[in-house]
């Protein structure tokens, strides 16, 4: 048992979703130190402030140590649940009774699964599926990966994207503090970024907030919130129509740029094979894209095919982006036209189109320039189209999954399993690669829309990866969608989704109040736990068994010439006496509702547990044994928990193909999203049948800048500022708000204040440190103001994920504000493609007087 262990013990950090390798010092059962494991190739012995503070999260004196039952039936953020300590038997009996009550209609169960620290996420998802509900919520925030995942699935092949810091000479970050304040594998990429900057890589940061990344950039270009696509389209215009920086061979042979589109925007297809057609300039003939005689597919021209006029999609793109001159973009974005031209030209030149590099004897295209984007560009009413033209910048110069370009995370591997992106429909990339057989939701060709059964209307978002942002809207009134049932029960991980996963807190509160029965795991009584009927105590990361230790292993590892690694998490100290490992709890519940066999079947599938280690339906395994069996199944009989305790991490080298798979990909990438026309048309038919009149203007193959509601609100004079969100490196993605060391750091760095441009504030009579009213269309809160020159004058910066109100979090309570709580939540603020919630909200700031 863990209590007998002393000295330095190897396990995995769990202070955020990444999962670095750590060694933990234990003296007489007390954790006295945590250090990075230098053998782990992801964090290479380094740790961030959150990880270093982990001891004080582990020793939270207010943590939940026993099952609890609420005795106050009234639920609300201001309601005292009046907890009563109960036995495990009573807790489980109550949950089983509620599950049995909805057993005949399992879709009434909602599973809130985000807890990327360890196995709880995949286990609760597997339980939800075994029980039979489609309502499995697996995303964190209301913007979390909303656009980057679908875009990756059809134009990269991985889970997320990552600039290749090993080779890039020019890197543009838009709405992200990549490798300086945030993102997956942070402790790895932070060093790579420092090394890249030291060797001369130019870093350009485009962001309304001049934060950590901007301060380390060669150039910070402030941009008006919600105008990223105008900038991207303008840069594309400069590259394609002014400077001529584009990778013609790549576009011809590796993308759908030569596919011929008719007047209606749809591909012209071969009547028999139905494959898209191209014009071969080599012999002047029309052919299918996969014709073996195709030598020189044309990127321009107009061609007659069976009486229809067809033009290469590349030409349509070029003509389309010509609508976005830098002068027009200056008016939209406030970025001077000359700056737009200059960075486009610098980017195009840095891409070194046509050059190659030899790595391990293999000659590869060398494109040392890339554009990266994340939350800031995703969180908009038209978030998909804010982001897609930014990805296109990489694509037109051929900088996708080649040295120096934008790379796809975790897309391909040869050990310990085989996984890789694959082509499909129309010769295009269709299936992204993933080490775990959790297939990416199809973003190409997408899914056929149907009348919804799901409460989150997933059926009406045929390209999206997640849908949970719809839940507060549909549960408030589901009649317009023809849904005639209610979600009645919620099972959740310890994650605090009330503050983290949605917008307008009043709507979210009503949503949680509408759920008849809520049971959740908890380490501390956070705002989500306040709505629980039954609370199940959860181990800290230093007390847990997990085969999955975070996203750095399976979804967002370091890209390029980096090793594959895998570690497991195992306790370094014993949990409190009345605590049961969450896997064991789920097994008990599954067994008693009669789905244990299905749960095991799904776990065998999810975790690729093979004979002789597969979980057998007639047996009960403790959590430790399941982790042990999985580890042995992956790495061999000798690689059990003991091996991992001794060695910490499995390291496997990756070859050139695994590092830069772009040239190896047997599929084309899209520069023109023809399938959006098809899905948009199908969606309109379904919506017409339902009597719904949604704005489907996003379903178009070429992006436009479409303003967010806040853009208009400012012009109407209703509000004068736009609030945006940004990240702190010592808070980002973490579970440390109640940690007193992190709290002290936040106080010392004024992280709890909102940022306001100094000149704008002074004109309003507001001074540094003042307490003000911050008012959005849905919420008015008190906030402390920090005046700064490092923010766009039209923006207000709200960092972190604060604003706790739960008495169970006495350290964090009353500190800072919740940005999400300010966000209007209705269909006018939901991106109709990705379901991202609009994150640039109009606000006014007034002195509290």
């Amino acid at each position, binding site marked *: 048992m863990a209590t007998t262990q002393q000295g330095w013990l190897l396990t995995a950090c769990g202070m955020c979703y990444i999962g670095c390798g750590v060694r933990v010092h234990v003296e007489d059962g*007390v954790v006295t130190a945590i250090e990075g494991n230098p053998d782990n190739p992801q964090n290479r012995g380094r740790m961030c402030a959150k990880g270093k503070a982990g*001891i004080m999260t582990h020793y939270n004196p207010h943590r939940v140590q026993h099952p609890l039952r609420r005795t106050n039936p009234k639920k609300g953020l201001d309601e005292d649940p009046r907890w009563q300590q109960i036995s495990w038997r009573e807790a489980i009996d109550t949950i089983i009774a509620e599950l049995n009550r909805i057993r005949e209609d399992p879709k009434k169960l909602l599973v809130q699964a985000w807890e990327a620290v360890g196995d709880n996420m995949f286990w609760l998802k597997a339980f939800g599926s075994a029980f039979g509900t489609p309502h499995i919520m697996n995303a964190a925030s209301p913007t979390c990966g909303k656009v980057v995942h679908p875009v990756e699935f059809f134009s990269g092949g991985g889970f997320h994207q990552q600039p290749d810091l090993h080779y890039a000479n020019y890197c543009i970050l838009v709405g992200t503090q990549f490798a300086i*304040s945030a993102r997956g594998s942070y*402790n790895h990429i*932070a060093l790579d970024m420092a090394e890249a900057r030291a060797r001369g890589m130019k870093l350009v940061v485009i962001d309304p907030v001049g934060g950590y990344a901007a301060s380390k950039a060669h150039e910070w270009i402030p941009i008006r919130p919600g105008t990223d696509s105008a900038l991207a389209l303008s840069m594309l215009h400069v590259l394609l129509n002014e400077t001529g920086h584009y990778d013609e061979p790549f576009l011809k042979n590796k993308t759908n740029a030569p596919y011929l589109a008719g007047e209606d925007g749809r591909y012209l297809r071969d009547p028999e094979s139905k494959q898209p057609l191209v014009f071969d300039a080599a012999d002047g003939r029309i052919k299918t894209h996969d014709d073996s005689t195709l030598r020189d597919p044309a990127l321009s021209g107009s061609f007659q095919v069976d009486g229809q006029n067809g033009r290469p999609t590349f030409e349509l793109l070029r003509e389309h982006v010509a609508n976005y001159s830098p002068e027009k973009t200056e008016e939209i974005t406030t970025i001077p036209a000359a700056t737009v031209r200059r960075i486009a030209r610098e980017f195009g030149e840095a891409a070194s189109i046509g050059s190659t590099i030899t790595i391990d004897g293999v000659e590869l295209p060398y494109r040392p320039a890339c554009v990266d984007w994340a939350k800031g560009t995703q969180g908009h009413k038209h978030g998909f189209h804010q982001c897609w033209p930014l990805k296109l910048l990489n694509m037109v110069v051929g900088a996708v999954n080649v040295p120096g370009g934008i790379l796809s995370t975790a897309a391909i591997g040869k050990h310990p399993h085989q996984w890789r992106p694959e082509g499909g429909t129309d010769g295009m990339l269709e299936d992204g690669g993933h080490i775990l057989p959790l297939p990416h939701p199809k973003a190409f060709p997408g899914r056929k829309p149907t009348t919804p059964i799901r409460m989150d209307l997933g059926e009406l978002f045929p390209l999206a990866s997640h849908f949970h942002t719809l839940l507060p809207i549909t549960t408030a009134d589901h009649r317009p969608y023809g849904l005639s049932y209610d979600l009645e029960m919620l099972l959740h991980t310890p994650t605090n989704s009330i503050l983290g996963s949605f917008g307008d807190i009043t709507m979210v509160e009503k949503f949680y109040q509408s759920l008849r029965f809520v049971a959740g795991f908890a380490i501390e009584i956070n705002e989500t736990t306040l709505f629980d009927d039954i609370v199940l105590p959860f181990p800290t990361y230093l007390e847990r068994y997990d085969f999955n230790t975070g996203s750095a292993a399976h979804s967002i590892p370091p890209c390029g010439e980096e090793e594959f690694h895998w570690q497991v998490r195992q306790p370094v100290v014993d949990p409190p006496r009345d605590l049961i490992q969450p896997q064991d709890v789920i097994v008990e519940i599954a067994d008693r509702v009669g789905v244990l066999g299905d749960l095991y079947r799904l776990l065998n599938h999810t975790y690729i547990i093979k004979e002789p280690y597969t979980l057998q339906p007639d047996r009960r395994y403790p959590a430790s044994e399941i982790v042990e069996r999985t580890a042995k199944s992956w790495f061999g009989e000798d690689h059990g928990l003991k091996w991992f305790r001794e060695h910490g991490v499995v390291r496997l080298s990756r070859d050139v193909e695994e590092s830069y798979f772009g040239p190896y990909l047997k599929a084309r990438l899209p520069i023109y999203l023809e399938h959006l026309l098809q899905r948009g048309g199908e969606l309109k038919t379904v919506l017409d049948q339902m009597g719904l009149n949604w704005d489907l203007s996003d379903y178009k193959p070429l992006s436009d800048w479409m303003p967010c509601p806040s853009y208009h609100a400012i012009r109407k004079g209703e509000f004068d500022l736009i609030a945006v969100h940004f990240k702190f*490196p010592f808070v980002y993605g973490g579970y440390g708000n109640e940690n007193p060391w992190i709290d002290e750091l936040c106080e*010392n760095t004024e992280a709890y204040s909102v940022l306001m441009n100094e000149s704008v504030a002074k004109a309003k009579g507001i001074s540094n440190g003042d307490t003000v009213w911050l008012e959005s269309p849905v919420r008015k809160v008190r906030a402390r103001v920090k005046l700064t020159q490092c923010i766009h004058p039209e923006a207000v910066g709200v960092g972190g994920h604060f604003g706790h109100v739960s008495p169970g979090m006495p350290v964090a309570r009353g500190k800072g504000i919740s940005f999400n709580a300010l966000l209007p939540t209705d269909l006018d603020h939901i991106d109709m493609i990705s379901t991202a919630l609009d994150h640039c909200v109009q606000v006014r700031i007034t002195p509290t007087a």
Partner: protein
Amino acid sequence: MGLASRVLFVPYRKSQPCSRGPTRHWSEMATNGRHTTTTTYVRWGMAIDLKRCTGCQSCTMACKVENGTPAGVFWMRVLEREEGTFPLAQTLYMPLRCNHCAEPPCVPVCPTGASYKRTHDSLVLIDQDKCIGCSACVIACPYQVRFVPRHKTGYHGDQFTPYEDVSYKRWQAGTAQKCTFCVHRLDQGLGPACVETCPTKALVYGNLNDPQSEISKLIRTRTHFQPRAEAGTDPSLFYLT
């Protein structure tokens, strides 16, 4: 109120910038009596690369967990200071801590000899058994990196966490404390906790008396300054700019 406004910010941009290349040859440093005692073989120093530092505060936290310092006490901290006017504005991040000066003003003012310079490696240390908490050193230090916590109070008040139960035994209330350069780690052949964790490798420690050490090479090849060198303290911290 933020930390930056509570303490004196060292005006590092204006203090003696050095040109590239060594100012004096190593052999001169090693034998120059003003800087070293005759028996000094090692002079521990640290180079802090301000280009690499991103203000992530990992070092701040690594110091806290390593040394178990109480609330409000930071042997190692990273100050933030804004420079410029929109849109040409940025935040500068500056890790700050004891400079382990070759001429430490805190040592001669100590009435009990508690503050001392360790002869064989030039570290400035405090013998808490001798310290009477008079704070003379706190006042004498031009860098404001010495602390005298009057009480042992945990982060959750009088009820210590099990970690604090152990770690608070490492220091005495009512006596001066500060960065020890993680002397307990150095003596085991390990690097200081802040250096080991820094995600961007912005902190480099080493022997200033060894011309082949990484730190000596960095100081030779990079522009740098020593904070408030004009005070005549000859700090062992070198900020690379």
